[in-house]
């Protein structure tokens, strides 16, 4: 009998101790609990995420990711390439913790992963030669030649969704488009303004952005589904990035010289969880 009583008393004490420590716990694992952070980025997007000759990464996405990682308290973080088609899987299999890779928030993707941010809302816009005066918005492209990059959908927004009768000139890449634009074999290149500005950023002033945006591309921060704490912490870091002037500095550093109208205030967040 006493044995039993002692047993019960011990059990009670154990339960008390266990629950005492565990109250309020039980939430899902968060990136905030990690020692190091693995961040997926683009390796081949000038101005946004580009692997340089030393094997390091540079660009707006990289700088924003580093700022956010530091704000979350990480000193130890590394970048890995996140190919567009694998981004959801990388997050779901926890092979990367966050993704900063011109990763547009879409309802379909939101069923698989969560998004912090957006940290910037890019817009589809048009790049033309600086001497061009006849193109003020996307409708002015009627009858002109537009670069069609194989594998990209941007041209569809002009010729199919907007039904603007353009002459499509097929090319393999956006950098080839830029060459064609400058030598006059195409009149315009159309895709996300930050991507255009990134390609143009290192170039001379012979090309300009029309500044007639016709889509919203909300660049979000991909994060595993359910990590609401991590997502909210990233949002807070992004808010602070705009409040302390870092966002303005970074946007002007990477895209300033192209004459692109940059939005320097914090974007509307998607909401976590």
């Amino acid at each position, binding site marked *: 009998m006493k044995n039993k009583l002692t047993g019960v008393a011990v059990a009670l004490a154990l*339960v008390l101790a266990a629950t005492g420590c565990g109250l309020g716990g039980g939430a899902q694992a968060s990136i905030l609990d990690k020692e190091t952070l693995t961040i997926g980025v683009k390796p081949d997007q000038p101005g946004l995420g580009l692997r340089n000759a030393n094997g390091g990464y540079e660009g707006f996405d990289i700088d924003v990711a580093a700022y956010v990682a530091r704000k979350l308290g990480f000193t130890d973080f590394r970048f890995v390439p996140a190919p567009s088609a694998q981004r959801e899987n990388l997050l779901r299999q926890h092979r990367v913790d966050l993704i900063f890779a011109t990763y547009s928030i879409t309802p379909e993707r939101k069923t698989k992963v969560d998004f912090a941010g957006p940290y910037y809302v890019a817009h589809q816009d048009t790049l033309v030669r600086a001497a061009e005066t006849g193109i003020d918005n996307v409708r002015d492209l009627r009858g002109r030649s537009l670069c069609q990059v194989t594998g990209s959908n941007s041209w569809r927004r002009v010729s199919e969704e907007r039904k603007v009768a353009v002459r499509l000139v097929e090319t393999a890449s956006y950098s080839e488009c830029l060459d064609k634009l400058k030598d006059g074999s195409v009149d315009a290149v159309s895709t996300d303004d930050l991507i255009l500005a990134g390609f143009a950023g290192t170039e001379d002033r012979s090309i300009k952005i029309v500044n007639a945006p016709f889509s919203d591309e909300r660049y979000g921060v991909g994060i595993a589904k359910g990590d609401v704490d991590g997502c909210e912490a990233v949002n807070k870091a992004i808010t602070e990035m705009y409040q302390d002037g870092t966002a303005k500095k970074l946007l002007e550093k990477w895209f300033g010289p192209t004459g692109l109208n940059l939005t320097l205030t*914090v974007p509307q967040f998607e*909401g976590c969880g």
Partner: protein
Amino acid sequence: MSTPVTAPPAGAAPAPTPAGPGATPAVPPAAPPPAGRPRRRRTVPSRIRLLAGVGVAAVALLFTATALTIGNARDGLQVIGHDAGPQVVATADLYFALSDMDAQVANVLLIGREVGLGKGRQEALNRYDQRRAEASRAVLQAAELAIGDGTEQMTVRSVLDGLGRYERLAAQAILLDEQAGHPAGPPPQRVIDLYRQATDLMRLDLLPKAYNLTLDSGTIVRKTYEEESSAVTTGRGLVIVAGFGTILVLVGLQVYLARRFRRVTNPALVAATVAVAVLTVSAASLLTTEAAELRMANDDGFTSVLALSRARAIGNTMHGDQSRYLLDPERADTYEQVYLDKSQSVLYTPGGNLEKYYAGVDKAVGGYRDRPDFLGFLGAEAANITLPGQRAAVREVLGDYRDFQFQDRAMRLDVQRDQVRSAIALRMGPLAGAFENYDKELVGLIDLHKDAFDQAIRDGDDALSGWDLILPGAAVLAVLLILAGVAPRLSEYR
């Protein structure tokens, strides 16, 4: 309480007892005593005291566990139901008020000197003033919620500053527009230029911040809910274990006394055991109720109210985008695009242009039975039917949303056919009507969730009422009964 004494060594002869000869001392060997302590022989009264002491301690433990857990439930209900929850919902109205201010300015500029278009210029101006007052009130709520969070406070301040600038720009545009005295349609370029500054400030700067503020302050409620509801669940386990342990101790005491004193039952101890059992069962069931009410208030109430309020605010901005589309032909493409983007956040079906979207909405709404094949705010709502009457309300909202999109289509067709005047009449008349219907149904759906929220909070509060007396009363009663049960036995040794 008696000082804790170590158990007698195994096999030690028991002290003489009043039970008389023939009664076998039925004390099994106890757990080994802690090392280093001297072993002492124990007398029957000291054993009774020990057992009674353990019983009283167990009751105290049960009392503490229940009181603490009830405290968690009460805190949860307080924050979610009475403090932060309603305030967060109020900040969601900030976005709505701001967005409607901008929409009303666009309407004023679009109507010009015309009379007889929809509700007219004066009504638009009145609504502008009303929304401005609502926005100020909501900013105050947001400021209160932001206390203690520097980042949020900075956002609130910048919304306030921006609101001042917006009002100045809007007032200038309205004044200039009045002086121009233009017919319905796009106003003179200098008015458009001023309005562009105003609407860019509103749409690109203030509205995102207002939206983020609601998201941020919603965090308080989410965290409180997670912490308190997990504490209530854990606490309930603790209460059950403590209650069960107490009952075991009391039964043990009962059995011991029965064997020692040859009395079958000890009525006071039986009563104490029953009191503890009743207390445990009712506390556990109370805490089950509280966990359920917290969950209901959060999931079916708060979260849905917040999400649908966002959908409503975005819908209002879409209605404003329709006016802006007519007001500023040069930017018409941009306003049409943002209209589509916002539509897709409210109800998502794939499709890159409005033509495809209208068809998608028609198909999605027409095909909705149990499981929606669309996403967005309305998709999430339609996929999560938990309240009576919710499905019917969702159907109404969806039907009205489809009508609203059909009217939008008609308006844009007029513009494409260069019948701007007819498009404006449509915008101010049938389209505005379709929007109001949709908005009214959406508010009805939000109210359904608000009622569920209020009901859950009320039920949670009601269930807790009286426990300030019940709990200490039951605990004191149990302790007194234990003492009453052992006192006569102990007195036999005096």
